[in-house]
């Protein structure tokens, strides 16, 4: 019986800062300073003003569930199912989204629009995944 090993993000030049910040417990995105516009995935230019005056800025980690699916299919032998895949929208910006997992929530309680907050799951010495749990979770 094969063991499921969760694949982790490779550290690449444009994404390295994102994953490493998660590992340090911070959710951060590339931002256009003049537009105050978050750019995800990170690009070397702002798609609104085409400016290059960018930095990296933190967000609150609060989000709303834009959509979700309960996955039942084992995509690899040994993978535990079911689990909830969520598409969350960060409160800072319309359509600033992450695909993630909704955790610490019974599946039947998951619903579109529910408020969520980020929690980080360390998957290596350098990378953590941003997962989301109900904001009301104790």
């Amino acid at each position, binding site marked *: 019986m094969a063991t499921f090993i969760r694949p982790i993000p490779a550290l690449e030049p444009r994404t390295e800062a994102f994953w490493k910040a998660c590992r340090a417990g911070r959710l951060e995105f590339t931002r256009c300073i003049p537009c105050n516009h978050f750019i995800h995935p990170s690009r070397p230019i702002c798609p609104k003003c085409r400016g290059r005056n960018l930095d990296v800025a933190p967000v609150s980690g609060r989000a709303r569930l834009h959509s979700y699916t309960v996955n039942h299919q084992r995509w*690899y032998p040994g993978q535990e199912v079911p689990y909830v895949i969520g598409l969350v929208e960060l409160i800072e910006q319309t359509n600033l989204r992450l695909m*993630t997992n909704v955790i610490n929530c019974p599946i039947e309680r998951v619903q579109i629009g529910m408020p969520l907050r980020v929690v980080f799951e360390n998957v290596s010495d350098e990378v953590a995944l941003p997962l989301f749990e109900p904001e009301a979770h104790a």
Partner: protein
Amino acid sequence: MSEPLERRAIISGVAQSAIGRRLFRDDLDLTCEAALAAIADAGLKPDNIDGIAAYPGPIQGGPGFAGPGIYEVQDALGIDVRWHVSGLEGPAQISPIIHATLAVAAGLCRHALVYRTVTEASAAADTGRRGIGAGSLEISGFAAFFIPFGAMSAANWLALYARRHMHEFGTKKEHLGAIALTGRKHAAFNPKAVYREPMTMDDYLNARLVSEPFGLYDCDAPVDGSTAVVVSSADTARDLPHPAVRFNAVGTAMHKRPLWDQWEDITTMAARDAAAHMWSRTDLTPQDVDTVQLYDGFSFLTLAWLEALGFCRRGESGPFVEGGRRIQLGGELPLNTWGGQLSGGRLHGFGFVAEAVRQLRGECGQRQVPNCEVAVVGVGGGPVAGCLLLTR
């Protein structure tokens, strides 16, 4: 507007190889079978072919996904070409067909062989269908934001679209089921379809779940098979053994962010922009269309295409297909008359093109749409789309 250049092209020939689950045949062998038959169907000899194009070319895809590259096929067939292209990026899997219309219109070639070949069923025979990135330790590129979260299939990505559509518009699981049941009903009349046994709504609703709201019958069936078409200059139309199928308009537009997760309105798809682009290039309207062959890699995609093309209003595709009568043979808009990819097999876009050509030629026997003069082919899902308006 001057006449769209794609009207200087026609589809002169079409053919498919054997299609099945686990044929265990070489992808180049299947491609040559389809190619030779398509060339003969156009009344041509291999030496008449002077262009070649394919989707996606020899990329690193999942097992059995890519098929042979155009250089392998050119070499195998022993032909000289004046124009050639393959690639993954473009207006969905039919992009090489659209490229070919322009190549013949520009005089770069006169008869282009265009094909799509898959051997995904045989390739997964030992392992079952695995997720994208399964077995990898590290994930690069855009998938790094999906795969580590267990979103390892387009089934997961598009389930998010379907769920949001249900949330905003009250679309029901039974509406997705109408797409699956219609395909299955039509597949009974297609000897090459892989799933032809009758299916009821109860069968559909009780199928095992894959990624909610998608169950087994919302997801297309991997197969082995090759589809080939010959795109020729319109000035050859009179010499053909079969009626020429004409490109009235193509749709290739892509607006907004072409990313699965950042697409701004996930109740729609790139189909919205490609379809609007196509209608902007013609005087024909949705009311003129006799049959639609719309991508159903997942059932929801077909609903999104129906809205994108204007056959119903935004959000109203569920009620539009409810009960299935409207979209079945004999209804006002027969859909996926070959079974679609859900029942006919995942020929990855080209199955819809082959069926549209055969319907327009009047070759479909029991599943023929009467007096079929105008057909729409819509291919792709999520942030990927291309469409064709074909006429007899």
